[in-house]
Protein backbone atom coordinates (compact mmCIF):
# COMPACT_ATOMS: atom_id res chain seq x y z
CA UNK A 1 0.00 0.00 0.00
CA UNK A 2 1.20 3.50 -0.83
CA UNK A 3 0.57 6.62 1.20
CA UNK A 4 0.15 10.28 0.38
CA UNK A 5 -0.74 13.45 2.15
CA UNK A 6 -2.15 16.71 0.84
CA UNK A 7 -0.92 19.91 2.43
CA UNK A 8 -4.24 21.64 3.14
CA UNK A 9 -2.53 25.00 3.56
CA UNK A 10 -1.31 24.76 -0.05
CA UNK A 11 -4.33 23.03 -1.59
CA UNK A 12 -6.41 25.52 -3.53
CA UNK A 13 -9.19 23.07 -4.48
CA UNK A 14 -8.39 23.13 -8.18
CA UNK A 15 -9.69 19.58 -8.57
CA UNK A 16 -7.10 18.60 -11.17
CA UNK A 17 -6.04 15.64 -9.02
CA UNK A 18 -9.58 14.27 -9.17
CA UNK A 19 -9.39 14.18 -12.97
CA UNK A 20 -6.05 12.36 -12.97
CA UNK A 21 -6.87 9.88 -10.22
CA UNK A 22 -10.62 9.72 -9.47
CA UNK A 23 -10.29 6.65 -7.20
CA UNK A 24 -8.03 8.48 -4.77
CA UNK A 25 -9.20 12.11 -5.11
CA UNK A 26 -12.67 13.65 -5.40
CA UNK A 27 -14.33 17.01 -4.88
CA UNK A 28 -17.39 17.29 -2.67
CA UNK A 29 -20.40 19.45 -3.57
CA UNK A 30 -18.87 22.46 -1.86
CA UNK A 31 -15.82 21.99 -4.06
CA UNK A 32 -13.55 20.81 -1.25
CA UNK A 33 -11.02 18.05 -1.84
CA UNK A 34 -11.54 14.59 -0.34
CA UNK A 35 -8.83 11.96 -0.72
CA UNK A 36 -7.63 8.54 0.41
CA UNK A 37 -4.38 8.65 2.38
CA UNK A 38 -3.68 4.99 1.69
CA UNK A 39 -4.23 3.22 -1.61
CA UNK A 40 -3.20 0.21 -3.63
CA UNK A 41 0.24 0.33 -5.29
CA UNK A 42 -1.44 -0.33 -8.63
CA UNK A 43 -2.75 3.24 -8.49
CA UNK A 44 0.71 4.78 -8.07
CA UNK A 45 1.04 5.84 -11.73
CA UNK A 46 -2.29 7.60 -11.56
CA UNK A 47 -1.38 9.31 -8.32
CA UNK A 48 1.97 10.45 -9.75
CA UNK A 49 -0.04 11.98 -12.56
CA UNK A 50 -2.21 13.77 -9.97
CA UNK A 51 0.94 15.10 -8.30
CA UNK A 52 2.10 16.46 -11.68
CA UNK A 53 -1.15 18.21 -12.55
CA UNK A 54 -1.72 19.86 -9.15
CA UNK A 55 -1.04 23.53 -9.95
CA UNK A 56 0.19 24.24 -6.42
CA UNK A 57 2.19 21.02 -5.85
CA UNK A 58 0.20 20.23 -2.71
CA UNK A 59 0.33 16.41 -2.90
CA UNK A 60 3.22 14.56 -1.22
CA UNK A 61 4.16 10.89 -1.23
CA UNK A 62 4.87 9.49 2.25
CA UNK A 63 7.87 7.19 2.49
Amino acid sequence: MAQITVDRKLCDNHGQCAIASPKVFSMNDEGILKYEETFDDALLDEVEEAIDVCPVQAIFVKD
Partner: protein
Amino acid sequence: MGERIIVAGASLGGLRAAEQLRSAGWDGEITVVGEEAHPPYNRPPLSKEVLAAPGTPEEALASLTFRPKRNATGIQWRLGTRITGSNLAAGTLTLEDGEELGFNGLVVATGLRPRRVQAPGPLAGRFILRTLDDALALHAALVPGARVSVIGSGFIGCETAATAASLGCEVTLVEGRTGPMERPLGSALSRGVRALLTGRGIDCRRGVSVIRYRGTESCTGLELSDGTLLHADVVVEAVGSMANTEWLEGNDLDLGDGVECDRHLRVLTAAGQPVPGVVAVGDIARYPDVRNALPARRVEHWATPSDTAKIAAPALVAAINGLPPAEAAAPLPTFWTDIFGTRINGIGSPAHARETRVLEGNPAHPQAGVAMGYYRDNTLIGVVNAGLPASRNLHYRQLVLDAGVLVTT
Protein backbone atom coordinates in the same frame (compact mmCIF):
# COMPACT_ATOMS: atom_id res chain seq x y z
CA MET B 1 29.79 10.49 -27.87
CA GLY B 2 27.28 8.33 -26.03
CA GLU B 3 23.60 8.64 -26.74
CA ARG B 4 22.38 12.05 -25.64
CA ILE B 5 19.11 13.94 -25.71
CA ILE B 6 19.29 17.68 -25.11
CA VAL B 7 16.31 19.49 -23.69
CA ALA B 8 16.50 23.20 -24.58
CA GLY B 9 14.75 25.28 -21.90
CA ALA B 10 14.58 24.52 -18.17
CA SER B 11 11.09 25.56 -17.13
CA LEU B 12 7.99 23.38 -16.73
CA GLY B 13 8.21 22.14 -20.33
CA GLY B 14 11.86 21.15 -20.00
CA LEU B 15 11.28 19.42 -16.67
CA ARG B 16 8.27 17.43 -17.88
CA ALA B 17 10.09 16.48 -21.08
CA ALA B 18 13.07 15.13 -19.12
CA GLU B 19 10.77 13.15 -16.81
CA GLN B 20 8.74 11.76 -19.69
CA LEU B 21 11.89 10.71 -21.56
CA ARG B 22 12.78 8.49 -18.61
CA SER B 23 9.21 7.20 -18.44
CA ALA B 24 9.43 6.41 -22.16
CA GLY B 25 12.47 4.22 -21.47
CA TRP B 26 15.31 6.52 -22.50
CA ASP B 27 18.32 5.50 -20.40
CA GLY B 28 20.94 7.52 -22.29
CA GLU B 29 22.16 10.93 -21.26
CA ILE B 30 19.69 13.77 -20.75
CA THR B 31 21.06 17.32 -20.56
CA VAL B 32 18.69 20.18 -19.85
CA VAL B 33 20.05 23.59 -20.85
CA GLY B 34 18.29 26.68 -19.50
CA GLU B 35 19.05 30.37 -19.55
CA GLU B 36 17.66 31.18 -16.09
CA ALA B 37 19.85 30.50 -13.07
CA HIS B 38 16.91 28.92 -11.18
CA PRO B 39 15.79 25.30 -11.40
CA PRO B 40 12.31 24.85 -12.95
CA TYR B 41 9.69 26.76 -11.00
CA ASN B 42 5.97 27.43 -11.19
CA ARG B 43 4.93 30.64 -12.96
CA PRO B 44 1.17 31.09 -12.28
CA PRO B 45 1.75 32.39 -8.71
CA LEU B 46 4.07 35.10 -10.11
CA SER B 47 1.12 37.35 -10.98
CA LYS B 48 -0.90 36.24 -7.93
CA GLU B 49 0.50 35.12 -4.52
CA VAL B 50 4.17 35.84 -5.21
CA LEU B 51 3.51 39.30 -6.61
CA ALA B 52 1.38 40.05 -3.55
CA ALA B 53 3.74 38.67 -0.89
CA PRO B 54 6.99 37.09 -2.11
CA GLY B 55 8.92 37.01 1.16
CA THR B 56 12.67 36.89 0.57
CA PRO B 57 13.89 35.80 -2.89
CA GLU B 58 14.93 32.48 -1.34
CA GLU B 59 11.50 31.94 0.20
CA ALA B 60 9.80 32.82 -3.08
CA LEU B 61 11.97 30.38 -5.03
CA ALA B 62 11.47 27.64 -2.43
CA SER B 63 7.70 28.00 -2.62
CA LEU B 64 7.74 27.79 -6.45
CA THR B 65 10.37 25.17 -7.27
CA PHE B 66 8.95 21.92 -8.70
CA ARG B 67 9.75 18.72 -6.86
CA PRO B 68 11.45 16.27 -9.23
CA LYS B 69 9.82 12.90 -9.90
CA ARG B 70 11.39 9.87 -8.29
CA ASN B 71 12.16 8.05 -11.54
CA ALA B 72 13.62 11.17 -13.20
CA THR B 73 17.20 10.32 -12.30
CA GLY B 74 20.53 11.06 -13.92
CA ILE B 75 19.45 14.32 -15.51
CA GLN B 76 22.18 16.88 -16.05
CA TRP B 77 21.15 20.47 -15.55
CA ARG B 78 23.08 23.27 -17.21
CA LEU B 79 21.40 26.32 -15.77
CA GLY B 80 22.35 29.93 -16.44
CA THR B 81 23.35 28.83 -19.93
CA ARG B 82 21.90 30.39 -23.05
CA ILE B 83 21.68 28.56 -26.35
CA THR B 84 22.55 30.85 -29.24
CA GLY B 85 22.37 28.63 -32.31
CA SER B 86 21.72 25.17 -33.69
CA ASN B 87 22.41 22.92 -36.63
CA LEU B 88 19.67 20.33 -36.55
CA ALA B 89 20.95 18.33 -39.53
CA ALA B 90 24.38 17.95 -37.88
CA GLY B 91 22.83 17.40 -34.42
CA THR B 92 24.62 20.25 -32.63
CA LEU B 93 23.76 23.25 -30.46
CA THR B 94 25.91 26.28 -29.80
CA LEU B 95 26.02 27.84 -26.34
CA GLU B 96 26.61 31.47 -25.48
CA ASP B 97 30.32 30.93 -24.75
CA GLY B 98 30.87 29.18 -28.09
CA GLU B 99 30.84 25.61 -26.76
CA GLU B 100 29.16 23.07 -29.07
CA LEU B 101 26.98 20.27 -27.72
CA GLY B 102 26.08 17.26 -29.86
CA PHE B 103 22.81 15.36 -29.58
CA ASN B 104 20.94 12.35 -30.93
CA GLY B 105 17.62 13.91 -29.99
CA LEU B 106 16.45 17.42 -29.14
CA VAL B 107 13.44 18.74 -27.23
CA VAL B 108 12.61 22.38 -27.98
CA ALA B 109 11.17 23.90 -24.77
CA THR B 110 12.36 27.52 -24.79
CA GLY B 111 8.88 28.97 -24.28
CA LEU B 112 7.98 32.62 -24.59
CA ARG B 113 9.05 36.08 -23.52
CA PRO B 114 6.81 39.13 -23.12
CA ARG B 115 6.18 41.33 -26.12
CA ARG B 116 7.06 44.98 -25.48
CA VAL B 117 4.93 48.02 -26.21
CA GLN B 118 6.29 49.72 -29.32
CA ALA B 119 5.96 53.35 -28.26
CA PRO B 120 8.64 56.05 -28.00
CA GLY B 121 9.85 57.24 -24.59
CA PRO B 122 12.11 56.16 -21.71
CA LEU B 123 12.61 52.45 -21.00
CA ALA B 124 13.25 52.72 -17.25
CA GLY B 125 10.23 52.23 -15.01
CA ARG B 126 8.50 49.85 -17.45
CA PHE B 127 8.02 46.34 -16.08
CA ILE B 128 7.16 42.97 -17.62
CA LEU B 129 6.18 39.74 -15.87
CA ARG B 130 7.43 36.35 -16.97
CA THR B 131 10.16 35.31 -14.53
CA LEU B 132 10.65 35.18 -10.78
CA ASP B 133 13.13 38.03 -11.06
CA ASP B 134 10.50 40.08 -12.94
CA ALA B 135 7.95 39.41 -10.18
CA LEU B 136 10.34 40.38 -7.37
CA ALA B 137 11.29 43.62 -9.13
CA LEU B 138 7.67 44.54 -9.80
CA HIS B 139 6.58 43.69 -6.25
CA ALA B 140 9.15 46.11 -4.87
CA ALA B 141 7.59 48.90 -6.94
CA LEU B 142 3.98 48.16 -5.93
CA VAL B 143 3.93 50.24 -2.75
CA PRO B 144 0.59 51.49 -1.37
CA GLY B 145 -0.55 54.62 -3.15
CA ALA B 146 1.68 54.09 -6.19
CA ARG B 147 -0.01 55.00 -9.46
CA VAL B 148 0.19 51.90 -11.61
CA SER B 149 -0.71 51.65 -15.28
CA VAL B 150 -1.11 48.15 -16.62
CA ILE B 151 -1.08 47.95 -20.42
CA GLY B 152 -2.96 44.97 -21.82
CA SER B 153 -5.98 43.14 -20.46
CA GLY B 154 -5.18 39.49 -21.07
CA PHE B 155 -4.76 37.04 -18.17
CA ILE B 156 -1.46 38.46 -16.92
CA GLY B 157 -2.58 42.09 -17.28
CA CYS B 158 -5.84 41.54 -15.40
CA GLU B 159 -4.22 39.45 -12.65
CA THR B 160 -1.44 41.99 -12.20
CA ALA B 161 -3.94 44.86 -12.05
CA ALA B 162 -6.00 43.00 -9.44
CA THR B 163 -2.94 42.11 -7.34
CA ALA B 164 -1.63 45.69 -7.50
CA ALA B 165 -5.02 47.04 -6.42
CA SER B 166 -5.15 44.61 -3.49
CA LEU B 167 -1.74 45.96 -2.42
CA GLY B 168 -3.24 49.45 -2.19
CA CYS B 169 -2.01 50.83 -5.49
CA GLU B 170 -4.06 53.18 -7.64
CA VAL B 171 -4.50 51.11 -10.79
CA THR B 172 -5.41 52.00 -14.35
CA LEU B 173 -5.90 49.18 -16.83
CA VAL B 174 -5.35 50.17 -20.45
CA GLU B 175 -7.42 47.47 -22.08
CA GLY B 176 -6.29 47.81 -25.68
CA ARG B 177 -8.45 46.71 -28.59
CA THR B 178 -10.37 44.00 -26.75
CA GLY B 179 -11.97 43.97 -23.28
CA PRO B 180 -10.59 42.11 -20.23
CA MET B 181 -9.74 38.54 -21.30
CA GLU B 182 -12.20 38.98 -24.15
CA ARG B 183 -10.39 36.78 -26.67
CA PRO B 184 -10.53 33.62 -24.54
CA LEU B 185 -13.80 34.38 -22.70
CA GLY B 186 -16.01 36.16 -25.22
CA SER B 187 -17.67 39.55 -24.79
CA ALA B 188 -20.40 38.74 -22.23
CA LEU B 189 -18.07 37.30 -19.61
CA SER B 190 -15.43 39.90 -20.44
CA ARG B 191 -17.89 42.59 -19.38
CA GLY B 192 -18.42 40.68 -16.13
CA VAL B 193 -14.66 40.60 -15.52
CA ARG B 194 -14.50 44.34 -16.17
CA ALA B 195 -17.23 44.82 -13.54
CA LEU B 196 -15.14 42.75 -11.09
CA LEU B 197 -12.14 44.99 -11.74
CA THR B 198 -13.94 48.34 -11.64
CA GLY B 199 -15.89 47.20 -8.55
CA ARG B 200 -12.56 47.13 -6.74
CA GLY B 201 -11.53 50.58 -7.91
CA ILE B 202 -9.53 49.77 -11.04
CA ASP B 203 -9.91 52.44 -13.71
CA CYS B 204 -10.49 50.51 -16.96
CA ARG B 205 -9.78 52.40 -20.19
CA ARG B 206 -11.45 50.75 -23.17
CA GLY B 207 -10.46 50.79 -26.83
CA VAL B 208 -7.29 52.80 -26.36
CA SER B 209 -3.58 52.10 -26.77
CA VAL B 210 -0.35 53.75 -25.65
CA ILE B 211 1.17 56.04 -28.27
CA ARG B 212 3.99 57.57 -26.22
CA TYR B 213 5.68 57.27 -22.83
CA ARG B 214 6.40 60.46 -20.89
CA GLY B 215 9.46 61.22 -18.81
CA THR B 216 13.14 61.84 -19.30
CA GLU B 217 15.22 59.34 -17.26
CA SER B 218 12.37 57.14 -16.16
CA CYS B 219 8.79 56.73 -17.32
CA THR B 220 6.42 59.08 -15.48
CA GLY B 221 3.29 58.66 -17.54
CA LEU B 222 1.75 57.74 -20.84
CA GLU B 223 -0.22 59.25 -23.64
CA LEU B 224 -3.15 57.28 -24.94
CA SER B 225 -4.52 57.14 -28.46
CA ASP B 226 -7.60 59.14 -27.41
CA GLY B 227 -5.39 62.02 -26.28
CA THR B 228 -5.58 61.43 -22.52
CA LEU B 229 -2.48 61.67 -20.41
CA LEU B 230 -1.99 59.25 -17.47
CA HIS B 231 0.50 59.86 -14.68
CA ALA B 232 2.20 56.65 -13.64
CA ASP B 233 4.84 55.73 -11.07
CA VAL B 234 4.87 52.15 -12.37
CA VAL B 235 4.07 50.87 -15.87
CA VAL B 236 3.48 47.17 -16.51
CA GLU B 237 3.48 45.91 -20.08
CA ALA B 238 1.35 42.80 -20.51
CA VAL B 239 0.65 42.83 -24.22
CA GLY B 240 1.22 39.21 -25.16
CA SER B 241 4.33 37.21 -25.87
CA MET B 242 6.83 36.12 -28.48
CA ALA B 243 8.32 32.67 -28.90
CA ASN B 244 12.02 32.19 -28.12
CA THR B 245 12.91 30.69 -31.51
CA GLU B 246 15.91 32.77 -32.61
CA TRP B 247 18.38 29.99 -31.80
CA LEU B 248 16.57 27.72 -34.29
CA GLU B 249 16.98 30.05 -37.26
CA GLY B 250 18.77 28.75 -40.34
CA ASN B 251 17.30 25.25 -40.11
CA ASP B 252 14.52 25.68 -42.69
CA LEU B 253 11.75 25.60 -40.08
CA ASP B 254 8.47 27.55 -40.02
CA LEU B 255 9.08 29.91 -37.07
CA GLY B 256 6.22 32.28 -37.89
CA ASP B 257 4.61 31.77 -34.46
CA GLY B 258 6.48 29.31 -32.27
CA VAL B 259 7.66 26.06 -33.82
CA GLU B 260 5.36 24.20 -36.17
CA CYS B 261 4.81 20.56 -35.19
CA ASP B 262 2.68 17.61 -36.23
CA ARG B 263 0.27 15.92 -33.83
CA HIS B 264 3.14 13.88 -32.35
CA LEU B 265 4.90 17.19 -31.51
CA ARG B 266 7.60 16.37 -34.06
CA VAL B 267 9.09 19.61 -35.36
CA LEU B 268 8.37 20.11 -39.08
CA THR B 269 10.47 21.66 -41.85
CA ALA B 270 9.01 24.58 -43.78
CA ALA B 271 7.93 21.96 -46.35
CA GLY B 272 6.02 20.05 -43.63
CA GLN B 273 8.34 17.06 -43.14
CA PRO B 274 9.37 15.94 -39.61
CA VAL B 275 12.96 16.89 -38.76
CA PRO B 276 14.54 13.62 -37.59
CA GLY B 277 14.96 13.48 -33.80
CA VAL B 278 13.51 16.90 -32.92
CA VAL B 279 10.30 17.54 -30.95
CA ALA B 280 8.83 20.57 -29.16
CA VAL B 281 6.81 20.97 -25.93
CA GLY B 282 5.02 23.67 -23.99
CA ASP B 283 4.13 27.23 -24.93
CA ILE B 284 6.48 27.29 -27.93
CA ALA B 285 4.88 24.36 -29.77
CA ARG B 286 2.33 25.12 -32.49
CA TYR B 287 0.44 21.89 -33.07
CA PRO B 288 -2.81 20.77 -34.72
CA ASP B 289 -6.09 20.82 -32.80
CA VAL B 290 -7.25 17.30 -33.54
CA ARG B 291 -10.35 17.74 -31.38
CA ASN B 292 -11.89 20.46 -33.46
CA ALA B 293 -10.07 20.24 -36.80
CA LEU B 294 -8.83 23.79 -36.29
CA PRO B 295 -5.48 24.97 -37.66
CA ALA B 296 -2.31 24.34 -35.65
CA ARG B 297 -1.86 26.78 -32.79
CA ARG B 298 0.13 27.42 -29.64
CA VAL B 299 -1.68 26.87 -26.32
CA GLU B 300 -0.18 29.12 -23.64
CA HIS B 301 -1.57 27.39 -20.56
CA TRP B 302 0.05 25.73 -17.59
CA ALA B 303 -1.27 22.26 -18.49
CA THR B 304 0.26 22.37 -21.98
CA PRO B 305 3.88 21.49 -21.06
CA SER B 306 2.72 18.34 -19.24
CA ASP B 307 0.24 17.34 -21.95
CA THR B 308 2.67 17.85 -24.81
CA ALA B 309 5.66 16.25 -23.04
CA LYS B 310 3.65 13.04 -22.67
CA ILE B 311 3.25 12.88 -26.44
CA ALA B 312 6.58 14.35 -27.55
CA ALA B 313 8.93 12.27 -25.36
CA PRO B 314 7.77 8.82 -26.54
CA ALA B 315 7.69 10.08 -30.14
CA LEU B 316 11.32 11.23 -29.81
CA VAL B 317 12.50 7.98 -28.24
CA ALA B 318 10.71 6.04 -30.99
CA ALA B 319 12.34 8.19 -33.69
CA ILE B 320 15.85 7.67 -32.26
CA ASN B 321 15.17 3.93 -32.22
CA GLY B 322 14.00 4.04 -35.84
CA LEU B 323 10.37 3.31 -34.94
CA PRO B 324 7.17 5.13 -35.94
CA PRO B 325 5.45 7.15 -33.19
CA ALA B 326 2.62 5.57 -31.23
CA GLU B 327 -0.91 6.92 -31.67
CA ALA B 328 -0.98 10.41 -30.11
CA ALA B 329 -3.46 11.61 -27.51
CA ALA B 330 -5.61 14.68 -28.20
CA PRO B 331 -5.01 17.09 -25.29
CA LEU B 332 -8.00 18.99 -23.97
CA PRO B 333 -6.78 22.52 -23.21
CA THR B 334 -7.58 23.86 -19.74
CA PHE B 335 -6.69 27.10 -17.98
CA TRP B 336 -7.54 29.03 -14.87
CA THR B 337 -7.11 32.55 -13.62
CA ASP B 338 -7.86 34.24 -10.28
CA ILE B 339 -9.25 37.77 -10.06
CA PHE B 340 -9.90 39.14 -6.56
CA GLY B 341 -10.58 35.65 -5.26
CA THR B 342 -12.91 34.65 -8.10
CA ARG B 343 -11.53 31.64 -9.93
CA ILE B 344 -12.24 31.44 -13.65
CA ASN B 345 -11.79 28.01 -15.24
CA GLY B 346 -11.62 27.35 -18.96
CA ILE B 347 -11.97 24.00 -20.70
CA GLY B 348 -11.54 23.28 -24.42
CA SER B 349 -11.23 25.99 -27.06
CA PRO B 350 -13.66 28.80 -26.17
CA ALA B 351 -11.71 31.34 -28.24
CA HIS B 352 -12.72 29.46 -31.40
CA ALA B 353 -16.47 29.47 -30.79
CA ARG B 354 -18.98 30.98 -33.18
CA GLU B 355 -21.75 31.15 -30.58
CA THR B 356 -21.93 31.51 -26.79
CA ARG B 357 -24.77 30.42 -24.47
CA VAL B 358 -25.27 30.89 -20.74
CA LEU B 359 -25.34 27.47 -19.03
CA GLU B 360 -25.95 28.76 -15.51
CA GLY B 361 -25.75 32.03 -13.59
CA ASN B 362 -25.27 35.49 -15.02
CA PRO B 363 -22.08 36.54 -16.83
CA ALA B 364 -22.52 40.08 -15.49
CA HIS B 365 -21.76 38.72 -11.97
CA PRO B 366 -19.01 36.12 -12.31
CA GLN B 367 -18.28 36.17 -8.58
CA ALA B 368 -21.80 34.81 -7.90
CA GLY B 369 -21.19 31.73 -10.09
CA VAL B 370 -21.60 31.46 -13.85
CA ALA B 371 -20.92 28.98 -16.64
CA MET B 372 -20.83 29.81 -20.34
CA GLY B 373 -20.89 27.27 -23.18
CA TYR B 374 -18.96 27.92 -26.40
CA TYR B 375 -20.25 26.33 -29.59
CA ARG B 376 -19.19 25.73 -33.16
CA ASP B 377 -21.84 24.32 -35.47
CA ASN B 378 -23.91 23.37 -32.41
CA THR B 379 -21.05 21.36 -30.91
CA LEU B 380 -19.91 22.36 -27.43
CA ILE B 381 -16.18 23.03 -27.91
CA GLY B 382 -15.52 24.81 -24.62
CA VAL B 383 -16.89 25.92 -21.25
CA VAL B 384 -15.74 28.75 -19.04
CA ASN B 385 -17.04 28.83 -15.49
CA ALA B 386 -16.35 31.31 -12.75
CA GLY B 387 -17.05 31.49 -9.04
CA LEU B 388 -18.29 27.87 -8.91
CA PRO B 389 -17.00 24.96 -6.79
CA ALA B 390 -14.45 22.66 -8.43
CA SER B 391 -17.07 19.90 -8.60
CA ARG B 392 -18.98 21.99 -11.18
CA ASN B 393 -15.77 22.42 -13.14
CA LEU B 394 -15.38 18.64 -13.31
CA HIS B 395 -18.98 18.35 -14.49
CA TYR B 396 -18.46 20.84 -17.32
CA ARG B 397 -15.20 19.23 -18.31
CA GLN B 398 -17.07 15.99 -18.81
CA LEU B 399 -19.69 17.77 -20.96
CA VAL B 400 -16.96 19.11 -23.25
CA LEU B 401 -15.27 15.70 -23.45
CA ASP B 402 -18.57 14.00 -24.25
CA ALA B 403 -19.41 16.53 -26.96
CA GLY B 404 -15.87 16.21 -28.34
CA VAL B 405 -15.53 15.78 -32.04
CA LEU B 406 -12.26 13.99 -32.55
CA VAL B 407 -10.94 14.43 -36.05
CA THR B 408 -8.19 11.93 -36.76
CA THR B 409 -6.85 12.47 -40.22
